[in-house]
């Protein structure tokens, strides 16, 4: 690893960042999430913390731009140079810029989060079947309003799960219209426009008015890229036009003809030879998370490494299961030292005067509990346990819990110790017995049973007939009345709740009964009749027919972040 001359670094550990604008390639929440995960790469191994600002000057100002974007180092169009960042310091120092002529994804092709529909914002599933035909992109087939949509499972005909894809007909981003959709036609400088335009701008971004007349109302927003849109060229955002004519020949698909770099392109009108309108065809794109993690390394004071597998190596390489290389860890810890101890937990001062954030038990005086607002459920990658209690999904993490109702309202953080004082901070699994409404909590080799405010335990899990070398129970799923499946790694057991004993014939292997889910799930729970198996920030949802019908983000789909 290398650091910048003079070991440039931040003189404080609470580093702030601000996202100044968004790329049209990805939904804003996915971009927020990619940046947050990229910062976490570094905060996991140092004492650094990263706080997002929404106004004012932050240490690290993040922006997307094209070509000449306001600093002395212009970008170069698609591919080649992807992003750059400045070492720590005042002004532009510490800032990170991303080339918006790239196609920003999660690294494996279009990452399309749906809106509305009936799939709770799940990601599109490509390819998907609709009326027997396979689709690899969003489509407006089957609709009369032209809104592109996709299925969120492999087979729309069977599952009927769908959502709408980003388009200017659905929403805009940035601008001054709070995400309102485009209004077509709209008038700009006396001219009517029937589609998004780059007219009036020098940065190449496509925009539209969100009322019928920009000249009078001045309301506008930027158009999200459709997944079928071309990247770069001189028609960014327009769809390919097939067939098109190029040098007298007809093409009905993307081609690399005419280029010596092998990149696939298409024309966006039917005749390239006369109109000269073109762009690159969408590809796997670059992982915004990986590139951001690299750039933030610069923003924290790391220069390029010459170790090929290090994050700070200057070349982009997509890796699916990213982990920070030893070289990167040594580099950043040379500057800031290692992370010491657990995350700090806030003090819990008590007073008798003001209202309560956390509902307390029947005490005579109202108690104020100050919960650290920075304990944001949406920033947590992996929860200790997730379970449904009294029809609300509960998410447990390090002494806190959050809950979401069926309507999707999220509440919390609450202190576990306030609601269930006998429990330790870390809960590995929990379930509510459907017959008795007793709530069982598991933590390491112990469990507790709550009936209202009364508690039994801790008791050892081996008393239930679980093996004494079992380190913990990672998940619990109610199976009919009086039976619960308890999970640990690749094994599961069936507990007879009434007998308080594991049934004969267990453990069984997870993959023999629940095919297609991770065998190293750290949370397993039942919600709305589906089994959920969680690994890191993702879940695998299994229906009653034991088919995995969705893989999605815990924070987007369940926490509604």
């Amino acid at each position: 690893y290398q650091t910048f001359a003079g070991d440039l670094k931040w003189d404080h550990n609470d580093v702030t960042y601000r996202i100044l604008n968004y790329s049209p390639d990805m939904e804003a929440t996915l971009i927020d999430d990619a940046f947050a995960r990229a910062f976490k790469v570094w905060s996991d191994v140092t004492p650094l913390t990263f706080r997002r600002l929404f106004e004012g000057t932050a240490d690290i100002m993040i922006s997307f731009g094209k070509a000449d974007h306001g600093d002395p180092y212009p970008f170069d169009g698609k591919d080649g140079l992807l992003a750059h960042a400045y070492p720590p310091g005042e002004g532009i120092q510490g800032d990170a810029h991303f080339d918006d002529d790239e196609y920003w994804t999660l690294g494996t092709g279009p990452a399309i989060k749906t809106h509305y529909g009936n799939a709770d914002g799940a990601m599109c599933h490509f390819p998907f079947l609709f009326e027997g035909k396979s689709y690899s992109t969003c489509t407006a087939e089957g609709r009369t309003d032209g809104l592109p949509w996709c299925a969120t499972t492999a087979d729309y005909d069977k599952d009927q799960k769908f959502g709408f894809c980003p388009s200017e007909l659905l929403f805009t981003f940035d601008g001054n219209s709070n995400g309102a959709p485009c209004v077509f036609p709209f008038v700009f400088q006396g001219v009517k426009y029937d589609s998004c335009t780059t007219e009036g701008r020098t940065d190449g971004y496509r925009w539209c008015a969100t009322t019928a007349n920009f000249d009078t109302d001045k309301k506008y927003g930027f158009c999200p890229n459709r997944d079928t849109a071309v990247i770069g060229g001189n028609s960014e955002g327009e769809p390919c036009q097939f067939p098109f004519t190029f040098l007298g020949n007809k093409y009905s698909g993307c081609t690399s003809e005419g280029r010596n770099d092998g990149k696939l392109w298409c024309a966006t009108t039917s005749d390239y030879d006369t109109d000269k309108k073109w762009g690159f065809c969408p590809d796997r794109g670059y992982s915004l998370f990986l590139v951001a993690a690299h750039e933030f390394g610069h923003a924290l004071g790391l220069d390029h490494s010459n170790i090929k597998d290090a994050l700070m190596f200057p070349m982009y390489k997509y890796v699916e299961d990213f982990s920070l290389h030893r070289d990167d860890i040594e580099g950043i810890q040379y500057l800031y030292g290692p992370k010491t101890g657990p995350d700090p937990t806030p003090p819990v001062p008590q007073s008798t005067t003001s209202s309560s954030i956390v509902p307390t038990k029947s005490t005579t005086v109202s108690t104020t509990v100050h919960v650290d607002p920075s304990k944001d459920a949406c920033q947590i990658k992996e929860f200790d346990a997730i379970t449904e209690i009294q029809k609300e999904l509960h998410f447990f993490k390090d002494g806190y819990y959050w809950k979401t109702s069926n309507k999707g309202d999220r509440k919390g953080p609450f202190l576990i110790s306030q609601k269930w004082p006998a429990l330790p901070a870390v809960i590995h699994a929990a379930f509510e017995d459907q017959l008795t409404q007793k709530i069982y909590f598991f933590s390491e080799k112990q469990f507790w049973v709550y009936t209202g405010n009364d508690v039994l335990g801790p008791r050892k899990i081996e008393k239930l007939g679980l093996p004494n070398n079992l380190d913990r129970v990672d998940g619990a799923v109610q199976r009919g009345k009086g039976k619960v499946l308890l999970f640990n790694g690749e094994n599961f057991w069936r507990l007879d709740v009434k007998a308080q004993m594991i049934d004969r014939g267990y453990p069984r292997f997870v993959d023999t009964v629940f095919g297609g889910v991770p065998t190293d799930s750290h949370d397993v729970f039942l919600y709305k009749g589906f089994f959920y198996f969680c690994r890191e920030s993702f879940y695998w949802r299994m229906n009653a027919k034991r088919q995995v019908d969705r893989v999605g983000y815990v924070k987007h789909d369940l926490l509604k972040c």
Partner: protein
Amino acid sequence: WCVPLKSVYVTFPGDVIKNMTDIQLADEYLKRYGYIDVLQKSGLQAVTSPSKALKKLQNQFGLEETGKLDQPTIDAMKQPRCGVPDIRN
């Protein structure tokens, strides 16, 4: 049917990645990423030979240090990458 197709290369309007020759590409790359100092042109510093600069680059990327613009080096220069220079003045 086995006669190779004749390819025609076109400079697309607005395409900022021009159809450069490998030598042009290398020249720009070595300057942009700090292997050749741009101040050399004004005669303020001793000129680094392209061969020396290429060796530096090949060392950085773990390639065989031939000092020549060989195919592995050209391929490395065409890889997507971060815009921060590898070598600082």
